[in-house]
């Protein structure tokens, strides 16, 4: 009985040590866990039932957890259930919660490298929140910047700019998508509309630069095509651009946007503009 307090002290110390060691070991085991912990996260439809009227709060909790989880680079397989977490859980619990769509799409695209998954999430968000321009805008930006799919990007930007509150730059990005996909005439039409309806000198100046260069590009394309047609019809190059009009290959010979006539080299058939480009673009310098 005399050794009682000492024995109890040893026992207590041993217990503290055992608890500390086991706790530390369990902590390291939980880091190895990887995606297994997400495997058991039920769908948002079921979680909505157990949230007892607080689905928005539960969505907050899972969103906060997801940020910490996907920010842990030690978990190599953390992206396995990425779409489930953001699309099937958080978006189902609170379909009007915008940030998880944006952050989720960013993780899917930039971290996991799955841009189609990001687009699916943003599409789901846009269906649930048709008044939010940011969702189709972000989807358009992914198509433009990451996928290089300008036609699809134009479609998203068109949806975004139809929503009240969309920034004016959306229209300009939308117009530029047609230029990127090679449809200079449609791009010119959109840029001209932006220029004609501009409400600030800044927008007027930017849009005029695009209209200016696109007009030259469209004119040069038209005149070069007409020169080629003339050559195939007459077996020689036209002596001057006016010959194209006389041959009925063009209605008129336009001047460039600065009012200068286009320059024609009768020896080579090349047509060029006397005015300098206003924008620096690949191939126009």
């Amino acid at each position, binding site marked *: 009985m005399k050794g009682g307090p000492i024995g109890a002290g040893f026992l207590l110390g041993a217990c503290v040590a055992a608890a500390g060691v086991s706790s530390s070991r369990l902590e390291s085991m939980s880091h190895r866990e990887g995606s297994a912990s997400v495997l058991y996260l039920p769908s948002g439809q079921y979680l909505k039932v157990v949230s007892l009227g607080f689905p928005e709060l539960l969505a907050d909790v899972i*969103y906060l957890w997801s940020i910490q989880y996907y920010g842990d680079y030690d978990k190599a397989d953390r992206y396995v259930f990425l779409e489930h977490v953001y699309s099937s859980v958080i978006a189902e619990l609170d379909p009007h919660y915008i*940030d998880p769509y944006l952050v989720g799409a960013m993780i899917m695209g930039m971290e996991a490298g799955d841009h189609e998954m990001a687009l699916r999430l943003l599409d789901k968000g846009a269906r649930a929140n048709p008044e939010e321009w940011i969702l189709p805008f972000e989807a358009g930006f992914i198509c433009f910047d990451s996928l290089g799919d300008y036609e699809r990007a134009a479609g998203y930007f068109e949806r975004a700019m139809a929503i009240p509150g969309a920034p004016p730059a959306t229209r300009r990005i939308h117009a530029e998508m047609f230029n990127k996909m090679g449809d200079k005439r449609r791009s010119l039409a959109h840029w001209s509309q932006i220029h004609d309806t501009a409400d600030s000198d800044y927008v007027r100046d930017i849009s005029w630069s695009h209209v200016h260069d696109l007009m030259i590009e469209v004119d040069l394309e038209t005149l070069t095509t007409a020169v080629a047609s003339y050559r195939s019809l007459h077996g020689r190059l036209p002596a001057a651009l006016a010959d194209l009009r006389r041959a009925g290959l063009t209605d008129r010979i336009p001047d460039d946007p600065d009012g200068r006539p286009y320059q024609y080299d009768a020896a080579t058939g090349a047509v060029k503009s006397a005015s300098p480009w206003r924008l620096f673009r690949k191939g126009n310098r």
Partner: protein
Amino acid sequence: MKVLAIALNTFREAIRDRILYLLLVFAVLLIGSSRALSLLTVGSEEKIVKDIGLAAISLFGVATAIFVGVGLVFKEIEKRTIYTLVSKPIVRSHFILGKYLGLVLVLAVNVSIMTACFYGLLLVKGWADAAIASAVFLTLVELLLVTAIAIFFSSFSTPILSSLFTVTAYVIGHVSWGLLMLAERVNGLGRGICHALYWCLPNLERLNVRGMVVHGADVPLDQVLTATVYGVSYTIIVLGLAMMMFRRRDFL
């Protein structure tokens, strides 16, 4: 006057039970969470703080309504003070009504102070929004109904069972929309039963506009008024049933 006297005594009793300490927990939770969130979240801080504030007001209120409500009648019986009361010229339904109003007063004070704390934090952060008031108001209406349900069960059952029944009613009240989903999967009598249950059971989701408010959506005034009429009507029905049950109870 007798109802008022019982109500005021119930209020005093709850205050003596240190029920207002909950408010301290609420304030710490709210301020602590808003500080922690700035470290944990990417955007959405405003939305999450509003979610936590509204949920805390509702959950603290429901916890008070259930755990104080179910003990109100039982304590009088356990301490034998009910014999003194029923021997006096007091109508039994007045006793129930007084107990109910006393607890409602406690809840109203609790919710008011919690809302003031909440608005204080939102003002400091620059997120104050008048629409929050409509969500808090409908939460109070929900608490009126939950309190009535707690008193109804406590009028004929023990506190433990009453707590269990009231929590069950609260859960059902928030998931009764599932009955409509179930009704779509069954035919005939089953569908009729699902629909009957859906319309008869309390639907507490009708009093929940928290989601709309945190997302900045307008809560139409007629929706708030209609929900209030629904909640108050249901409360009166449940309270009436509680009075009927209590009137039939034999204390001898």
